[in-house]
């Protein structure tokens, strides 16, 4: 089923209805809230997910992060794709 989890440069990742990125004030961290599941999200991952609005494609997301963190786009892209593919397999992200 590799095909369903593949992320392309033109993919427009977004959180489906029923999945929410939320600041968990009581524990001082970001969380991804999903059906019967709570994923702890570090600040970097939260920054990525904050850009997954269904408008930006992967290329735009990577470019923005590369500028923000002053890092090579190729390195950023590898990490972002791995993270998004994992969330997609868990059915908490759509592209």
């Amino acid at each position, binding site marked *: *089923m590799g095909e*369903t*989890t593949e992320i392309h440069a033109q993919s427009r990742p977004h959180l*489906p*209805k*029923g*999945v*929410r990125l*939320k600041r*968990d*004030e*009581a*524990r001082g961290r970001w*969380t991804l*809230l*999903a*059906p*019967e599941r*709570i994923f702890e999200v570090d600040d970097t991952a939260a920054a990525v997910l904050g850009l997954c609005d269904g408008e930006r494609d992967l290329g735009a997301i990577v470019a923005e992060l590369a500028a923000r963190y002053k890092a090579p786009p190729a390195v950023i892209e590898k990490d972002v794709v791995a993270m998004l593919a994992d969330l*997609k*397999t*868990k*059915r908490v992200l759509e592209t």
Partner: protein
Amino acid sequence: MNAPSPAPPIGLLVELTHRCPLGCPYCSNPLALERPGGELDGETWKRVFSEAAALGALHVHLSGGEPTARRDIVDLTRHASESGLYTNLITSGIGVGEKLTGDLAEAGLDHAQLSFQGADKETNDRLGHYAGSWEKKRAFASYVIKAGLPLTINAVIHRANLHQVGAFIELAVELGARRLEVAHTQYYGWALLNRAALMPPRKQVEESIALVEAARARLKGELVIDMVVPDYYARYPKPCAGGWGRIAINVSPTGKALPCHAAESIQGLEFWNVREHSLADIWHTNPAFNAFRGTEWMREPCRSCERREIDWGGCRCQALALTGDARNADPACHKSPDHERIVATALAESESGERPLRFRSYKEKVEA
């Protein structure tokens, strides 16, 4: 010495009512069902939701009984959502039409979990004790999908439907569910009453686990399948509600706050009511929530066990029901001196053929 302040709860499960059109013989509600006349009013439930969010809870599970039997379910859902809680409706789907489903989605509902008692009409309607529920459930599933909400199918598994695990997986895919729970029955309350009729044979349980594992691989990225294994046949117990007073609070229809839905079966604990106490007060200071919190209460073999902060001693209610003392290790654990005895009982019951079921109802006379 005072115990350190507990970390905040993650989830709030509210049994909004014990009214339900179904009569499942394994219902997780207590045998002594609470009467509609004593249910909390809407304003009190709203205060509880606000208090839960302020305390640090992230999920609220709107359950019952059938939660949509409450006429104010949309209003309650809206308030829970506006409080910042992720709202999950746990429903039979009976009586939830297209308009109500749309209204719930509009009010901020995040997710719907729909039960099926069987994977075909005959089995479903017989085990849920409600003729025609099959069609109503399927219709509700379509309304959820139409409203754009994620759908989970929940299938409680036991001897009378264990052969349908594969069919439940197909049903979940057909209905467009994102998630399926294959939940082997946990034997408390009504299920304990019906245990001899419900306990599945060990070999078939193992086959069902293998079948789910194969389906998980096949449906990766399409359907998430969560499985609760029958703990009588497990090596280690399941952590009671994630650990007593550790991650969850239950509130009964009349407002009793409980560490788990079966906690009232343990005599001698005084459970405070949300009418008189705030949720924070209950979480931090109700002695019942501290009774089995952490590891200090443990005896051997739990006390020195390397898994004591994984399993948290297993289930207190099961320890009480099967060994006579809530402080003992859960006999589902292979280290419990009672383990061999309960497995032998389960195996004998699982081979006892077809037996009559006692369906959940207000009228059923149940001996304690």
